[in-house]
């Protein structure tokens, strides 16, 4: 069996498992899993840039927030229905990512991380500055009545779960397809040896820009979906913490693997959920996880699996 086919079977198997999980899990975990699926889309967007292209961004929250506020403000202030509002969120993320990408990619290495961090910080402060419209830290609630897409009430737990699953499935299959195209392979080539990729005639700068923009778009879709499905948009989602979290999820699950982001998001979500029952200092878990990961498992769970047992893992 070719590795591309086993990858395809794996992806369909994961989706099947997630489909079945809805009927097997109690309501509390259904709600959690819906949240995880939406956040996993964010992690997959991040992984496209960090895991596949090898660019470490510390400012992805600005893309997540662009999607979230693109949808949120369109519905809250513009009175749009969910479908065009979701499109507005995607366009907002696409624009923000395109502009930031074209500027930030003029730098490399540590400077790239700091520039993305600074842009995200400026974005966060901008949301606070225009507090009259965005309601700043307090955020705003998207009313239940407005959150219906093509006749489906997205506040209903069942509809919400399957909406999240559909979005997740589309993005997972898209990433699975993308990384096997020649463009996807050129991203991996850039990660492995940028100089060599350039020598071979690839337009490295253009490929990196597309990767940033695409990654930002996926992150924005996750942000828009989060606001739509859970009915809330707030400045917290633009803060540094939300730039750090996808890095954590991807590192834990396995950078540069298709299912790593999902695995990492599930693990971290429940770890933090568990820790927050014990102590208010629940982010301590994240800190310890970061240090342990860099020391002992820099390739994450899926990466370790690939190295030890399943070399075909996508």
């Amino acid at each position, binding site marked *: 069996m070719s590795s591309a086919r086993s990858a395809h079977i794996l992806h369909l198997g994961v989706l099947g498992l997630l489909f079945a999980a809805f009927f097997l899990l109690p309501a509390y975990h259904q709600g959690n899993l819906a949240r995880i699926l939406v956040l996993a889309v964010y992690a997959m967007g991040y992984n496209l840039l960090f895991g596949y292209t090898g660019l*470490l961004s*510390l400012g992805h929250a600005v893309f997540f927030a662009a999607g979230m506020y693109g949808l949120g403000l369109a519905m809250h202030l513009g009175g749009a229905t969910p479908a065009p509002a979701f499109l507005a969120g995607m366009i907002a993320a696409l624009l923000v990512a395109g502009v930031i990408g074209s*500027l*930030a990619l*003029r*730098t490399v*290495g*540590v*400077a790239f*991380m*700091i*520039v993305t*961090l*600074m*842009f995200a*910080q*400026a974005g966060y*402060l*901008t949301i*606070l*500055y225009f507090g009259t419209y965005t309601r700043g830290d307090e955020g705003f609630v998207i009313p239940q009545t407005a959150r219906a897409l093509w006749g489906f009430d997205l506040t209903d737990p069942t509809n919400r779960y399957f909406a999240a699953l559909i979005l997740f499935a589309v993005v997972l299959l898209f990433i699975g397809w993308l990384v096997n195209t020649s463009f996807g392979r050129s991203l991996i080539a850039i990660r492995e040896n940028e100089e060599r990729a350039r020598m071979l005639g690839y337009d490295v700068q253009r490929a990196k820009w597309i990767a940033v923009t695409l990654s930002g778009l996926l992150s924005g879709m996750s942000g828009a979906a989060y606001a739509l499905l859970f009915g809330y948009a707030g400045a917290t989602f633009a803060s*540094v913490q939300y730039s*750090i979290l996808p*890095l954590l999820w991807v*590192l834990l699950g396995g950078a540069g693997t298709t299912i790593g982001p999902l695995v990492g998001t599930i693990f971290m979500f429940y770890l933090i959920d568990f820790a927050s029952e014990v*102590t*208010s*200092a*629940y*982010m*301590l878990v*994240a*800190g*310890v*996880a*970061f*240090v*342990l*990961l*860099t*020391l002992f498992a*820099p390739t994450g769970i899926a990466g370790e699996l690939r190295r030890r047992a399943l070399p075909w893992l996508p």
Partner: protein
Amino acid sequence: MDLGPYLLLASLEGAITASILALTAVGLSLVFGVMRVVNVAHGEFFMLGAVASWFVATYLGTHPAIGFIAALLIAPLLVGALAATADWLVLRRINYDPERTIVATIGLLYILQQGTLMTFGPDARPVEPPFNQRLAIPWPSFEGGFHLTWPWGLGTTSYKLFIIAAAITILFGLWVLMSRTKIGLIMRATQLDRDMAQAFGIPVERVYALVFGLGAGLAALAAVLIVPVQQAHYLMGGDPLLLSFIVVIIGGLGSLPGTVIAAVLIGLSDGIISVFFSPTLAKILATLLVALVLVFRPQGLLGKRIA
């Protein structure tokens, strides 16, 4: 009323920000210059300095001046030792790889911050200044012949002036350490060429631990100085970290004189802009400025272009 007195007051507040910022940022710049790593946990070392200062002042419980002097000695040493240990246990083992160091120091940031939340608690706690006389500042006036007036509210405290003097003294001491002592020479040699230094028998790993500790100690020292004016809080490390980044980048990564100049520039303008505009807007402009400096002039204002 005249604009002048306001401007003077704003510059004075700005000078205090600049002093604290210079100390903190020089610590960050030193670590980056010698070790070529970005320490994201730097702000937390600042916070730990303030918290340690509170503990010392509280448990010594005598005159504020004794507590202050004790804190001035103990807090930087304690924080520096902690940072050196973290370097030895974590950063050394990942071989100072730039990306993994950032990830590890993000982890360190959360561990220190959340650890403080668990022990010190979520409250902001004040530390009493060792001395705090109010000083009125005269303002020259030329209406009807030259004379000095004391406009209402125009004043500062002796402690605030002390902060500025202390920062200048410490920075001078650091300059002497770097340029006139053997340890400084070793640090500069390691900065110039790590492998060559190693070949000449310099224990590079120990120098790194020392530099990391020294950088964190400087941040802690700055915090001990500012905590009688501000308060100790477990989340107070965020702003100094961001501002230090800004200063270090504008000044040119790894250039100590550039860092000090940039700190004075940013501190003063922050003080003055905040008086006339919204502080949020000032921060937005500052962060955007930094991002654009990095994009279009990556060597900073005083840094040398790396060919």
